[in-house]
């Protein structure tokens, strides 16, 4: 390729081509493109430039270029895009490339303004999309949270309505869920399961819907036959909640069915023993007893916390899971806080 062909090529590509000498002087090898004159009005072919006369960005790049040339490696090193303001106030997007051609250290500077427009538009669009995506994600998160809270509120109210004939209050139902969730958290359950038990535990007595008033609201002791019918509420609840394929309701079904099982196998409906009883049901058994003890019932006054825990300690021999009871004791501060914060919200 003759020198003039090369020169034509450079000018076609709109390149300014500088040859860099060791003494930091650079020579303009071609007739510089017109845009280059915005920066160096009097420059022409063979004109010499000092490194200090280069834009700050290029001076910085010369360090990398120097390394590239010294390694004598084939290929080119690109500076990356930069914006330079000319003395006349116009802005130009350009890029420099360092190449070694037969020991000649060349610096090519080209304007990328031609595709600057499209590149800029593409980047702009992409980043605006990213911003919108960020906003949407935030909104989805906020809405999901809202829906979850609404669901909880509706569930609590429905459950309270269902067991209204019983003496249970909305506050009690809410507390059972919160205590159980606290236990599950302490036991390291995954967050989604913790969320499930928070709503599932309050449903444990829902089967009482199927128990006649005369038994459910009987003031005195139940006869053996009546008690047999009363006991049926766990099975009824378990069936009511079973088979939906929704994990929250599956948990609720298990809890409803097994929350009257006892650690020593003397409970109902199936007489399961020890760890045969699902963990969720063992948790609810503990927190249900606790809440009943520390609150007033028609048949008893509220016990102090220490009295209640002493009674439960006895029960941990045969009725309650002793390991889970130990966990319960270890988080008693948080349990008490839930109890104190969830009073008097009767629905």
């Amino acid at each position: 390729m003759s020198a003039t062909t090369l020169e034509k090529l450079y000018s076609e590509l709109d390149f300014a081509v500088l040859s860099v000498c060791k003494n930091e002087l650079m020579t303009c090898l071609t007739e510089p493109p017109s845009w280059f004159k915005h920066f160096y009005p009097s420059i022409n072919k063979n004109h010499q430039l000092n490194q200090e006369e280069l834009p700050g960005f290029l001076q910085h790049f010369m360090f990398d270029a120097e390394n590239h040339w010294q390694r004598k490696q084939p290929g080119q090193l690109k500076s990356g895009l930069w914006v330079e303001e000319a003395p006349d106030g116009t802005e130009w997007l350009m890029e420099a490339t360092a190449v070694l051609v037969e020991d000649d250290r060349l610096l090519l500077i080209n304007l990328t303004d031609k595709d600057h427009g499209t590149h800029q538009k593409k980047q702009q669009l992409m980043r605006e999309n990213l911003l919108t995506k960020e906003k949407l994600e935030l909104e989805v998160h906020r809405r999901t949270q809202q829906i979850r809270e609404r669901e909880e509120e509706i569930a609590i109210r429905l459950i309270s309505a269902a067991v209204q004939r019983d003496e249970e209050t909305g506050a009690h139902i809410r507390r059972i869920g919160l205590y159980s969730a606290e236990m599950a958290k302490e036991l390291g359950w995954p967050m989604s399961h913790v969320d499930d038990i928070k709503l599932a535990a309050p449903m444990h007595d829902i089967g009482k819907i199927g128990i006649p008033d005369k038994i459910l609201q009987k003031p005195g002791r139940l006869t053996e036959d009546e008690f047999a019918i009363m006991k049926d509420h766990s099975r009824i609840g378990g069936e009511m909640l079973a088979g939906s394929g929704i994990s929250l309701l599956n948990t609720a079904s298990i809890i409803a069915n097994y929350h009257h099982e006892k650690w020593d196998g003397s409970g109902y409906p199936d007489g399961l023993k020890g760890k045969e009883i699902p963990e969720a049901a063992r948790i609810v058994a503990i927190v249900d007893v606790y809440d009943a003890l520390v609150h007033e019932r028609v048949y008893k006054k509220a016990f102090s916390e220490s009295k209640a825990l002493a009674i439960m300690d006895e029960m941990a021999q045969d009725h309650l899971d002793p390991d889970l009871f130990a966990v319960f004791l270890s988080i008693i501060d948080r349990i008490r806080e839930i109890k104190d914060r969830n009073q008097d919200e009767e629905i």
Partner: protein
Amino acid sequence: MIQKKICLLGAFSVGKTSLIKRFVESIFSDKYLTTIGVKINKKKLSIADQDINLMIWDLEGEDDYTEINTNYLRGSAGYILVADGTRAKTLDSALSIHKMVQDLLGDIPAVLAINKADIEDQWLISPASINDIDKNLTVIKTSAKSGDNVEELFTTLSQNMVGTK
């Protein structure tokens, strides 16, 4: 006159370019025009009778697809990290960039700007998470829009760089 290079670093659209424009040219625009490539701005400052010529490097912000070209950081005397108070993730980006630069350049002066203080009621970066930031990193709430604390941002960093603070 001493010359100091500083860089503005952070996620995209946090207000890096706007902070520089406010500081150098005292102007602000609500229109978002993403930065392509690098732009170097210059501004003279006087810190404790010393004149400094600041070379302020505005780098294209980080996003999911663009990483900072670490070559650009070479020779920096200090840097400003920028987060957008209304986008919690941008604080994480700023802090991870901080760590990356520390690994690369060592402990050089740095200041963290939490920008868009004019709309602090819409902030999603909580006071608690601001409080959790390493106390060695100065945090300044700025607004490129109102100009609040922008001057302070650059002078605080410059004071740290010339060692008067």
